[in-house]
């Protein structure tokens, strides 16, 4: 087992993982918390922290889309559900410091509710809320996936249904009576586990935890895709019928990876909410889920590192663009998607690999040429 984990990446890969942890897990949070000569501003910590959460969602989508060939256009839903689950705890941790200084969150006072609805029971416990972060998206994905995969719903039909599902949940969460704050969602958080949430040190710790969780998620995904189960997933993508006639019940493979993917999204959402300070139903909007697919397409489907890269590239571009040319961001995003589809079918990572292969083969040919020349000379000398 240990040998298997060590073998997940080569020496260069582990070096990359180590460098990422050193920079994002230790150096950046320390620099931002301590201040000092090289100060990292809260803006960058917030931005990069948010992007790391998105990167985890990109990993999750890559598992189900890039490897298994099932395009989900509803992953924003699982992300939001994870966020709302932890958000319930964060709302209760506000205590009496709300505008109305009530036991209940402000939006419930506003609705004239006297007590928490039943599904809020137990959410004053951090650990219960943390369990919900995994259970709610996981259970929803499992039940939805069971019926969808058992009915052998595939391809564009599956994508449309997932899109409809996230849209339906968005409408549900927009309603005030649903009990999750309506269109304002949850915000104005004060503390998490007793620590003041606006403190730079709290933010730095959350940032570091996100970095470590992202690396853990990457390694877990890498373990899955390099196992025999991972090879079965790719076989589902390429020739599912062949696989069924080879004796595989593909339902359980799809259900496993689909649920795992949803759980990863939920965890990402839970890390996102305390760092960004707000969760509302727009996270469930269909456009959000489509954007996730664009990250993965840009980075490179079927490559975990590609998915991470895609999330970073697109979101860094977004944060710059929405400041520089706010009106044109969506046009630019659409253009990027079209260009990538046309010219980089395997994304940025695919382009890098092709370039590397070409360089290596050129180097190989050159080396071979030199060798031939050398032996030729040796022959002539004889």
């Amino acid at each position, binding site marked *: 087992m240990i040998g298997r984990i060590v073998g997940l990446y080569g020496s260069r890969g582990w070096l990359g993982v180590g460098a990422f942890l050193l920079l994002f897990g230790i150096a950046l949070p320390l620099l931002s918390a301590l201040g000092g000569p090289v100060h990292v501003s809260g803006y960058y910590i917030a931005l990069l922290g948010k992007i790391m959460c998105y990167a985890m969602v990109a990993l999750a989508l890559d598992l189900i889309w890039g490897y298994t060939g099932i395009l989900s256009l509803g992953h924003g839903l699982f992300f939001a559900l994870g966020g709302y689950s932890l958000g319930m705890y964060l709302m209760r941790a506000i205590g009496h410091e709300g505008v109305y200084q009530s036991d209940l969150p402000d939006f419930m006072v506003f609705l004239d509710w006297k007590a928490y609805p039943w599904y809020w029971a137990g959410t004053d416990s951090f650990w219960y809320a943390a369990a919900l972060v995994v259970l709610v998206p996981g259970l929803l994905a499992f039940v939805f996936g069971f019926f969808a995969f058992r009915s052998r719903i595939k391809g564009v039909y599956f994508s449309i249904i997932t899109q409809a599902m996230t849209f339906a949940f968005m409408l549900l969460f927009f309603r005030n009576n649903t009990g999750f704050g309506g269109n304002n969602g949850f915000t104005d958080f004060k503390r998490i586990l007793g620590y003041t949430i606006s403190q730079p040190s709290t933010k730095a710790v959350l940032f570091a935890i996100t970095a470590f969780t992202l690396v853990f998620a990457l390694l877990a995904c890498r373990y*899955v895709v390099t*196992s*025999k*189960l991972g090879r079965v997933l790719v076989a589902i993508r390429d020739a599912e*019928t062949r*696989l069924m*006639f080879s*004796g595989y019940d593909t339902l*359980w493979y799809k259900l496993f990876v689909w649920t795992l993917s949803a759980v990863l999204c939920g965890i990402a959402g839970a890390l996102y909410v305390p760092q960004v300070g707000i969760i509302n139903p727009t996270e469930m909007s269909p456009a959000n889920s489509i954007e996730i697919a664009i990250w993965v397409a840009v980075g490179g489907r079927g490559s975990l590192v590609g998915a991470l890269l895609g999330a970073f590239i697109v979101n860094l571009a977004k944060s710059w663009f929405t400041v520089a040319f706010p009106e044109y961001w969506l046009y630019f995003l659409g253009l990027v998607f079209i260009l990538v589809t046309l010219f980089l079918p395997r994304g940025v990572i695919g382009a890098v690999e092709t370039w590397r292969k070409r360089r290596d083969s050129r180097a190989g040919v050159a080396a071979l040429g030199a060798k031939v020349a050398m032996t030729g000379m040796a022959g002539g000398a004889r």
Partner: protein
Amino acid sequence: MNPIFGTPAATGARDAEWDQQEAAFGRLITSDEVDTSHGPILYLDDVTVSFDGFKALNKLSLTVERGELRCIIGPNGAGKTTMMDVITGKTRPDSGQVFFGQRMDLTRMREAQIAHAGIGRKFQKPSVFESHTVFENLELAMKTDKRARHSLFAELTAAQRKRIDEVLEIVVLGAHAGKLAGLLSHGQKQWLEIGMLLMQEPLLLMLDEPVAGMTDDETARTAELLERLSGDHSIIVVEHDMDFVGSIARTVTVLHEGSVLAEGTMSQVQSDERVVEVYLGR
């Protein structure tokens, strides 16, 4: 262990457990063991399949004995592929019985269960996992516990590697073990798919046009391979290539409009007037 959680495991202890579970559910499938002690390995009786009123199979009855090499011919639309779909669980018949051995009712089993019970199928169009290597293709097809939770932690044993190497030799792809299957030639893909069937260790092999697109040399070698495999395995070959059928067939079944038109040796069938009329005469 619930049947919907996967296919029965390969090991004896697991089989016993599986049997008990199945018995508890009151199903007809009572064993993982195919019982051919009192008759044929495959038994189709009065099978009818219709699509929107069109009868793809019309009261088809057919039996295949253990160790037999059976060729099935027939014009387009005779129901050859539908028959294979029924046997492998892809299509459910409207009426009729399909039994594997004495006790396994194939009409009640899912594709993966049927494959696990010992029926392997090669498709008309070579169907391999193109972005996997030849070695990995054989690994995926290998007879073993194919449930998801097992696959997550599965590692190849030395014996399994040896088995893959043996099959690589049989299908003459030893030199291409590390090559992506998508890069193989058409004939090599056909052989790889046959190799994948062998890895499943099936009792009954069903091959849909196994020599389509092969060179004469490859066709001859395929015939030789099938000869060698029959006996240990029961084989059903659906083929259009008459020379190939003539070279391997002992018994030929002619299908026409969803039922059996004639059955016998190649020469008997070729001299049957009805057969000449519907098929060979064209």
